[in-house]
């Protein structure tokens, strides 16, 4: 039987599983070995698989990304950890300029099946640069896949899929829910698909679209709205690039109303693409404007004001009400 585990344990489980199944899987990153990662996502893996499979690197994110590109091109499955997404910028030249292009650039002669894992998002009262959500910067990059789980089971299945995937994958882990709740996860090695959204709750009145840690707030809102007789469909986007618009469009076509919920600053975030695409394809079915509940277009404040920045279920409920009341 399967144990109830947290999301960070599920990440660890998936990494261990992938490493057992395929000796080409090699982990690298800062503090991931002896220390098991600052969030313990890689705990015990060095002891189990040795220091040729789990590489504690010098402190240099550009180097981690560049190394992963070279390793992946040699046929290893490089799974690199960036300690916090706030420190991912130095990887971008390699991720955007090389990982996402090597297959295309060589017409398939070489490829770059790396996974870049990074904890992301706010809500744990961390220091500056430890709470941002910049997934939009990567979701815009052709050739890359961007995946975000929102539960232990999806973390397990999606991470296995990311490691299996012949394309480079950015795998963002919402650290606010790393230990927020437990869920039984069977260590069966079964990956989840990377090309579909997950409909977490069916409903008729309105479609709520979200990902990552905001799924909890969204589900809470849906629960409370159900008490008021509002039936919400809740979709976890999960794969932010390339987007599965079909699932979202089908839902919005059914409900005619939509609220998108994310932590990232509103302007130019992935919510904008979803809203634009849904309006583009389903304008006539929309009975109200698509609302976005999102972070402000400001720098994430230091932690004392963090809660003011983070959208919460009350904000979602407000937006749903306004959307339902429209016209």
């Amino acid at each position, binding site marked *: 039987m399967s144990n109830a585990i947290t999301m960070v344990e599920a990440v660890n489980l998936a990494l261990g599983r992938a490493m057992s199944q395929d000796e080409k899987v090699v982990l690298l990153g800062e503090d991931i070995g002896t*220390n098991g990662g600052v969030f313990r996502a890689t705990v015990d893996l060095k002891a189990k698989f040795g220091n040729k499979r789990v590489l504690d690197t*010098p*402190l240099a994110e550009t180097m981690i990304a560049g190394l992963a590109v070279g390793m992946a091109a040699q046929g290893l499955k490089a799974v690199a950890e960036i300690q916090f997404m706030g420190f991912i910028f130095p990887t971008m030249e390699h991720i955007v300029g090389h990982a996402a292009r090597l297959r295309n650039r060589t017409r398939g002669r070489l490829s770059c099946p790396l996974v870049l894992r990074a904890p992301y998002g706010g809500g744990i009262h961390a220091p500056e640069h430890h709470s941002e959500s910049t997934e939009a910067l990567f979701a815009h990059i052709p050739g890359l896949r961007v995946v975000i789980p929102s539960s232990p089971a999806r973390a397990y299945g999606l991470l296995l899929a990311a490691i299996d995937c012949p394309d480079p994958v950015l795998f963002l882990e919402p650290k606010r829910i790393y230990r927020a709740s437990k869920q039984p996860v069977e260590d069966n090695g079964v990956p989840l698909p990377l090309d579909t959204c997950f409909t977490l709750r069916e409903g008729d009145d309105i479609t709520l679209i979200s990902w990552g840690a905001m799924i909890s707030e969204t589900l809470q809102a849906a629960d409370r709205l159900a008490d008021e007789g509002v039936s919400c469909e809740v979709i976890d986007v999960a794969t932010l690039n390339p987007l599965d618009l079909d699932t979202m469009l089908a839902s919005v076509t059914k409900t005619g109303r939509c609220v998108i919920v994310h932590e990232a600053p509103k302007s130019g975030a992935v919510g904008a693409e979803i809203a634009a695409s849904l309006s583009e394809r389903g304008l006539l079915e929309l009975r109200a404007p698509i609302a976005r509940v999102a972070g402000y277009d400001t720098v994430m404040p230091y932690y004392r004001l963090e809660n*003011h920045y983070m959208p919460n279920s009350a904000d979602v409920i407000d937006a749903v009400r306004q959307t339902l009341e429209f016209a």
Partner: protein
Amino acid sequence: MDTVFKGEIHLTRYLDQQGKLLAPLPDIPELPSRLVSCYRNMVLARALDSKAIALQRTGQLGTFASMLGAEAIDVSIGQCMKPEDVLIPYYRNHACQLMRGLPIDQLLLYWGGDERGSAHPAMGQDFPNCVPIATQALHACGVATAIKIRGEKRCAVTVIGDGGTSKGDFMEALNVAGAWQLPVVFVVNNNQWAISVPRVIQCGAQTLAQKAFGAGIRGEQVDGNDAIALHQVLELALERAREGKGPSLIEAISYRLADHTTADDATRYRDNEELKAAWEREPVKRLRSYLHSEGLWDEEQEKCWQEEVNRMVQEAADAYLAIPPQPVESIFDHLYAELPERLREQREWATVKAMPGGSHHE
């Protein structure tokens, strides 16, 4: 085969582990009284450190990076810098920041998750704490470039950890400092650990100081637990920088006596024997022994000062805890010089939501 380059790295040390002088004192004006001042600041730093950790453990402060073991480095920098020099710190330079004028409660405010902790006017042109590793080294070069362009006689001083020396920013900074002969001093606090990663995994070189060679600048090692040695090398390096004689890289050998931060547990990866041995070399006791032996400090002064710093720190902690949070609008008000039209609406929502009955009222 022609020899086209030769280089050597030297280590400077004046005090042995017991605080005994190994060589004649360097020729620095008023060194004894400076050392006393250094000592007092080191003790203050320790007191601040314990208080901050206590506050963190009781949920009254955020993640805190202790500077236990790096006190001599920081106070020597603080002592050798002139007010008009610019400090571009990393995140572990509290003692130096206090010596530069930052009030203790404001320092705590920063670690308490409040931007005002980096806003105090006493900080002058000094940079705030820098979280992204090694980026500060380039800012220091930018500051030094401005100083050089204007032909001023001051310098930029920046500090970095041993781990940070592996990041491109640091090496690009050394490189441009050498190419342009910038008035900047790079101090490496080599405390042997970058979170869980030991110095030997960071770099295959015998010393970190030799990274200076690749940039064509001066590089040297100094015992980072030895305030006298630190004074000697820093005084020289800063003065050279101010006089337009070029940059220096100083690797100060220390040891991180605490966990990396309060979010870390070093027992997971670090041998207790190593830690015990490091305590034998620690800087505070060493300087105290020296000052005692020279008659510059005694038990009575020690007792008074310990009481004094505890009082200062307690008062600062109380003051810090009494500071109300910023209004929610502050999230918007310092983003741009003037609030862009598009943010006005969001700012209003934020204010409304923070009011009683609002979704973000606390």
